[in-house]
C-alpha cells in the first residue's frame, strides 16, 4: 500500500493560509479543553497493582520476622546480582543471617518475587524513596521489613488478601506453581476465567 498524501493546496488556500488557520483553530479549541496535567505532589497518582517499586520483605504476623527460607532462588535469578543472603543451617532448616538488597543496582525486573516459593519478597507499589546519599539504598533485612510496614500503612494493604501479580503470575497454570504461591485471586487471573476475544469462535 502506497501512502496517500492529502491534496495539494490551491491558490486560494495558499493566499488564505487555510491550513495554518485550521491548525490555529485546533490550538484555540485546546485552549479551552481540560488540561491533562496532574499536579503530582498535591494530587495522588494512581499506581497499578503490581507496580515494581521499592523492595520489601513481607513481615510474618506470627513471628514478626521475614518468611524467607533462604532458598537462594532470588539471589540466583537476579540479573543485576543485587541480592545477597547469608544463612546457616540449623536442624534441617536454614536460618537467614542477613538479607541485603542494593536498590541502586536493582533493575526492577521482578524476577525475584516471581521465583520466591514462599512469597517472602515483594516489589511494592511505593516509588517515592529518594535520598541525598547512597547509603539509604542499601536495604538490610530490617529495612526491608520496615519497607513492608510502610507499604501496608501507606497503601492500606490487608495482609490476608493482598496478592501481588508476580507472586502468582496471572494466567500461570497452578501446576507450575509451588503450593505457597497458589493464592486465591480474582477470576481473570486464572486460566479458567481468562479474557477471550469476542471474535475467537469465528476463527
Amino acid at each position, binding site marked *: 500500500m502506497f501512502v496517500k498524501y492529502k491534496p495539494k493546496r490551491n491558490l486560494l488556500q495558499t493566499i488564505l493560509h487555510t491550513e495554518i488557520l485550521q*491548525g*490555529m483553530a485546533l490550538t*484555540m479549541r*485546546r*485552549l479551552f479543553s481540560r*488540561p*491533562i*496535567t496532574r*499536579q503530582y505532589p498535591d494530587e495522588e497518582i494512581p499506581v497499578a497493582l503490581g507496580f515494581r517499586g521499592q523492595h520489601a520483605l513481607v513481615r510474618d504476623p506470627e513471628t514478626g520476622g521475614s518468611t524467607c527460607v533462604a532458598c537462594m532462588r532470588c539471589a540466583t535469578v537476579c540479573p543485576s546480582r543485587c541480592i545477597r543472603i547469608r544463612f546457616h543451617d540449623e536442624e534441617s532448616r536454614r536460618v537467614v543471617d542477613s538479607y541485603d538488597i542494593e536498590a541502586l543496582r536493582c533493575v526492577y525486573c521482578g524476577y525475584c518475587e516471581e521465583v520466591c516459593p514462599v512469597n517472602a519478597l515483594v516489589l511494592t507499589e511505593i516509588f517515592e524513596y529518594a535520598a541525598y546519599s547512597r547509603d539509604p539504598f542499601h536495604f538490610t533485612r530490617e529495612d526491608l521489613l520496615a519497607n513492608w510496614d510502610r507499604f501496608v500503612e501507606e497503601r492500606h494493604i490487608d495482609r490476608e488478601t493482598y496478592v501481588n501479580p508476580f507472586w502468582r503470575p496471572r494466567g500461570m497454570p497452578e501446576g507450575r506453581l509451588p503450593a505457597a504461591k497458589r493464592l486465591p485471586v480474582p477470576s481473570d487471573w486464572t486460566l479458567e476465567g481468562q479474557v477471550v476475544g469476542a471474535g475467537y469462535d469465528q476463527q
Partner: protein
Amino acid sequence: MHVLVLLLQILVLFAVVMLHVAYATYFERKIIGHMQVRMGPMRVGWHGLLQPIADGIKSFFKEDIIPEQADRPIFLAAPIICLVAMLTSLAVLPFAPGWVLADINIGLIFILAMSSLSSYGVILAGWASNSKYTFLGGLRSMAQVISYEIAMGLSLVGVMMLSGTLNLSKIVEAQGTSFGGMYIFPQIIAFFVFCVAMLAETNRVPFDLPEAETELVSGYATEYSGMRYAMFFMAEYIGMIVMSAIGTICFLGGWNGPFTVPGVPFFWFVLKIYLFLFVFIWIRATLPRYRYDQLMELGWKLLIPLALANIALTGIVKAIIG
C-alpha cells in the same frame, strides 16, 4: 521642573512596560500551556501568578558567567545595547491623544532605526561570546534583520503615503477619517507583509532561527546567564510590545475605537496591543520553524515584491482618487 516631570513620566512608562514584560512571559507560558493541554506555571502563588517575580529575582541573583575566551567589553555591552535600543523606541509611541514622551516628526523612522540598532546587540553578543553556536545565531540574526527590515519598511510606506506623515500621533489621527477608521482595510497587503516581518523582526516562531533551540542550542544567547540573559529576554518582549504598538498605530487605528471609554483614553490602544501579543503567542503554539534559506527566500522573493506592489498600487489608487 519640566525635566523632573519628564523623568517621572519616563519612570512610570518604564515601570508599566516592565510589568507588562514580566506578565507577558507569564501569560505566554499559561496560554501556550493550555493550548498544549497542560497548565503552565502553577506553583508560585495562586496559579503561578508570582512566577515572573520569582524568575526576575532568580535571574538577578544568578551568577553572571563570562566565558574566558569572550571579548569581555562587547560581551558585557551587548545585552545592554539590545535592551536600551528597545526601551528608547518606547519614547515615541503615542498611547493616547497627547500621551507620548517625544512627539517627533520622524517617529516611524526612529522606531525602525532603533529596532535595527537592537539587532546590533544580538550580532555583537553572537560575536563576542566566542562560541560557534552564538556566532551562527548572530549571523542568522544579521541576515534576518537586514532582509526583513526592508520588507517592514516598505510595507509601512503605504501607510506613510496615505497619512502623509511620519509622526505616529498624526498617523493615528489620519486614520480616523479613513474607511473603517483603520488602515488595515486599504492596506491589507501591507498589513500581511508587516505581520510576517514583525514576527521575523522579533525573532518569534516561525522565524526564531537566531535562537532555534533545537539547532543552535540557544543561538546568540547560549553563553549568557543570569541578568544578562534576562536582558535579552526583556528586549525580546519589549520588541514584541513595540512592534504590536506599531501595528496598532499604523494599521488598527491606534487609540481610536468604536466608542470612547471615559477616563481610560488608552483603552483601545492597550486592548489592540494585547490582541497582537496573543496572536504572537498563538502562532508560537501552532507553527513549526522555517529553515534559514527558506526564510530568506520568503523575505526577498515574496514579501519585498508584495510590499513594492502595494506601494505601486497605493500610489495609483491615490493618484486616481486623490
